[in-house]
């Protein structure tokens, strides 16, 4: 794996630790307001300064990591499982099942620009963490399904699958015990890039006012709140911006590195 992958893993590990130990690392109550010190510059008391309501930005960013990772992990897990199952069924059974799933259902979901579908769903369902996760899962599963279908199509032709068939193994056993474990590897890359995408989508929807409502310290919401005062106090926007960029960058580094590692053709380049 290249150097950037290790940097990505290191940054991601730090962000995960921050999210886990946020209550220990936070220096202030995330929602405690103090208008007397609004827009305070970074100092020893408030490391990243304070926002428009005098809340400590450092502590809010720590707790924001929890929201981002919670959304990211849930969306990747749920959409990953759904995508793997549907993709496996399409690839394994082939015929009209595959034609219907990959030729029609996948195309319908790919016909919407991802963010737009999420915006539309949240607009009609209403804002909130659960609805946001649901919307991101609805747009996210098809990416996993497509990769998994391609993998299953390839693996099902391998000799050991034919051998299992010859030994009388049932379809479910062949699919779950023989094909899936050998087909799942590229999904790790997809999951890492999906994590970056989910964190970015959550922040985007929160920025648009369609994600997690205030006062929850979502990084996207923090940026939206800071935007109107940005010309006078850039640090209020800069810190959550850096947090999002670092998180997305870390998972992109990991995804890219893993792709290169798993694909020997790219490794030699």
């Amino acid at each position: 794996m290249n150097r950037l992958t290790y940097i990505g893993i290191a940054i991601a590990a730090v962000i995960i630790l921050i999210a886990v130990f946020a209550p220990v690392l936070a220096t202030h109550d995330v929602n405690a307001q103090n208008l007397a010190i609004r827009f305070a510059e970074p100092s020893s008391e408030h490391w990243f300064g304070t926002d428009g309501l005098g809340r400590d930005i450092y502590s809010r960013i720590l707790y924001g990591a929890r929201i981002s990772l919670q959304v990211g992990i849930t969306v990747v897990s749920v959409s990953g499982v759904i995508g793997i199952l549907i993709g496996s069924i399409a690839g394994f059974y082939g015929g009209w099942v595959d034609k219907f799933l990959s030729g029609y259902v996948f195309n319908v979901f790919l016909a919407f620009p991802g963010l737009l579908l999420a915006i539309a769903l949240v607009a009609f369902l209403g804002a909130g963490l659960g609805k946001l996760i649901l919307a991101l899962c609805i747009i996210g599963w098809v990416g996993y399904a497509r990769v998994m279908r391609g993998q299953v199509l390839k693996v099902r032709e391998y000799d050991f699958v034919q051998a299992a068939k010859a030994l009388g193994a049932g379809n479910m056993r062949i699919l779950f015990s023989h094909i899936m474990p050998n087909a799942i590897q590229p999904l790790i890359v997809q999951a890492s890039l999906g994590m970056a995408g989910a964190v970015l989508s959550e922040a985007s929807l929160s920025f648009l006012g369609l994600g997690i409502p205030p006062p929850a310290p979502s990084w996207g919401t923090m940026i939206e709140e800071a935007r109107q005062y940005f010309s006078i106090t850039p640090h209020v926007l800069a810190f959550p911006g850096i947090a999002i960029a670092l998180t997305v960058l870390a998972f992109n580094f990991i995804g890219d590195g893993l792709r290169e590692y798993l694909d020997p053709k790219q490794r030699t380049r």
Partner: protein
Amino acid sequence: MKYKLLNFARQLALVLLVIWTVVSLVTLLIELVPGTPATTILGETATAEQIANFNQKHGLDRPAFFFSIDSEKGFVWNGADNRYLEYWSNLLRGDLGTSFRTDRPVLDMILERYPATIKLALAAMLFAVGIAIPLGVLAGTNKNRIIDNLASFVALLGISLPTFVIGPFLVYIFAVKLGWFSPTGSLYPEDIVLPAVTLGAALSAILTRMVRSSVIEELGEDYVRTARAKGLSERKVVYKHVLKNGLIPVVTVLGLQLGVLLAGAIITEKIFSWQGLGLLLLEDGIAKRDYRLVQGCVLVISVTYIIANTLTDFVYKRLDPRIRLT
């Protein structure tokens, strides 16, 4: 010829099927609204008469679909007099309904704003291509050198930095500090620069990486060796031969990204108060809960996306004979 026609017909049928499903989904999305649109728009204090009038005016007094499942009556067949069919028949006549808030035709509202969004998306694309080709070629021809690593890092940064972070920073530097552009709005022609750069940043990063790997791949081909052996300068080899072949996948991504740009424009339009379709969807549609307008905007963006993708597929096949043969 027969095979070609059959293939074309099959693709057209699939596109029409996808458009039908997308329209149906968007039409039925309104049923997900908690409560009813009438109470959302008119408020909890609205009288029964006001609600009935509103529902009648917007055709909401009729059943949503051909059938409904009632907890008391069970399966109920509603016949052809339903909102789904009405929406379709209006749509085929070019009518997207009237706004719940302003009573104006939704299509008129969209047509007023769509040109601004398309202009922004095209400007963003132009910026992205203008940056990506020279940077990608530079990185590809200097593989694994500092310049390549730097270009790759900048590209990854461009992908990872969200538009709502890039946008305000550009405003801060070029509008607030340097005073070169207006921070928001679209009064002067140069006002498109900052929104276009913001919207095109991620695409330029994606394209840079694509051009880089295309150039690296093509540089290893036999025809490049022949061109070099002929005595062509390296510049001519790269720009006349390598880039010509290397740009084929880039065209595909460009086409596919047009729809992404149109959807992504929602955030950029919000940052710069750019009076496009995205701002219409956000401020007049979602914020004011004008669900008919939201339906119209989502539909128009999605159908544009599907058409752009289909055309890209077509152009891609024309450009690369290998794909036509398979």
